[in-house]
């Protein structure tokens, strides 16, 4: 029962989702809308609770077992709890219209957007900004024209890189045009092949799940 019931639910709702596209009747569309806008939101809320519970459990166990990089788990949990408490007790911004979300607990007053703008935004920007340095270092050490194909890749990369900056057009008006041709023709052709392959793989996996051949999603190691 504990295996057949979830599988039955999956098949039922899976088929509902597919046939909804082929039944353009208003009453069916209303039913489909209710499933999408209400039922899926409730399921999404439960999934969020499960995800948060899992986050706490995983990091708690890492700290308890002193696993590799466990101090980072303390930072994760601390950040999670501090942000959650401030957010949960915070003003929803109603009637202020100034974009602030204040938390007032007794004499304590804090705007959660301070965490966003003073911590999250600079940390995110720093992480991404560092990529330029690593890319430059990696390009210097690893990007070698060791074969004809590698040389072709290198030339294409140079043209596309020049096409992405105004300097390319300043050197020659043909560079952005050639860059565009590379992106529109060989790039599109290869991407299409990959995308079609991925979608066919997804369809095959979906059919395997819906027919009960693939059951690993239910857990239990089968």
């Amino acid at each position: 029962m504990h295996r057949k019931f979830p599988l039955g639910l999956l098949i039922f709702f899976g088929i509902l989702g597919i046939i909804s596209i082929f039944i353009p009747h208003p009453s069916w569309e209303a039913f489909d809308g209710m499933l999408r806008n209400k039922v899926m939101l409730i399921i999404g809320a439960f999934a969020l609770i499960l995800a948060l519970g899992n986050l706490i459990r995983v990091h708690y166990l890492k700290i308890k077992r002193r696993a590799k990089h466990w101090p980072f788990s303390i930072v994760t949990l601390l950040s999670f709890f501090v942000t959650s408490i401030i957010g949960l007790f915070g003003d929803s911004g109603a009637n202020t219209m100034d974009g602030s979300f204040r938390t007032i607990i007794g004499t304590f007053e804090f705007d959660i957007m301070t965490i966003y703008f003073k911590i999250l935004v600079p940390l995110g920007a720093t992480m991404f900004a560092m990529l330029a340095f690593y890319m430059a270092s990696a390009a210097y050490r690893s990007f070698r024209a060791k074969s004809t194909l590698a040389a072709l890749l290198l030339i294409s990369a140079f043209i596309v890189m020049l096409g992405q900056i105004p300097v390319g057009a300043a050197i020659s008006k043909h560079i952005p045009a050639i860059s565009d041709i590379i992106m529109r023709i060989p790039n599109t052709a290869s991407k299409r092949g990959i995308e079609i392959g991925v979608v066919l793989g997804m369809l095959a996996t979906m059919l395997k799940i819906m027919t009960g051949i693939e059951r690993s999603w239910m857990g239990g190691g089968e």
Partner: protein
Amino acid sequence: MNWERLLMLDRRVIFLIMALVIALPIIFPFGLPTQVTDRTQRLFDTIDATREDQAVLLSTDYTPQTEPELHPMYISILRHCFARNIKVLMVTLYIEAAGLMDVGLREVMDEFNARATTHEDSIIMGEDVVFLGWKPPPIIPILAMGQDIAGFYKQDFYNQETATMPVMQGIKNYRDISIVVAFSSGSSPLWFVQFAQTRFGVKVGAGVTAVSVADFYPYLESGQFSGLLGGMKGAAEYEELVEREVGVQGRRRATEGMSSQSAAHIAIMVFVIIGNIGYFATRRKR
């Protein structure tokens, strides 16, 4: 020349060179003309053709990491819409983007309101624009907006009731949207193609990072995207169009950043060339 030593160059030297190459053009920019590509022009034209009874839906789905590339696109399109009196509806599928959207919207509203002389010239929240906020998970809002936008987003980001807002009058679902423009550091433009365009027939445009633009070309070529802005250059092109075609002046962040990006691209190419010369010189020796 000792190529082997050069190839073993301390990476801190490379980091220092990159820091200078990126920072100096920010302080001393070298202005180069921006050429507008066809994919940017197509997006501009589609937005420009929005009828009076329609709105543009902006889905801002980027994190602070990609702000320098995507935020200027969002600002430019807001300027374009406000200058043409096009109604703007805004959502975000990523919670991390909500704060950036709010700040960007206020910045552009302040720009316009500082110049406004009448009520009609002013940009007013709820009358000309509404920020509908964030609702998870991402696919649900995309599908729900095909039925009833105000029914799904009952309150906006600032907890104001949406159904009674002037901006929402006559705007029910995707049928009243001229184009959805998704700014994304991930896959949200594709979700709009899969779930909003395929099912409800709405036009979709995209603003994506330079590193991911190659992934979106098949959708541009097939006509599923009505325009595509790629990276900081795409944003600079849109800034150019908004200033040239619409006559809106304002800070052009992407254009400012192009000097730095140009220098960084050239520096990386020079590194690759030196690395390859060194590789072939040392290989011959071996």
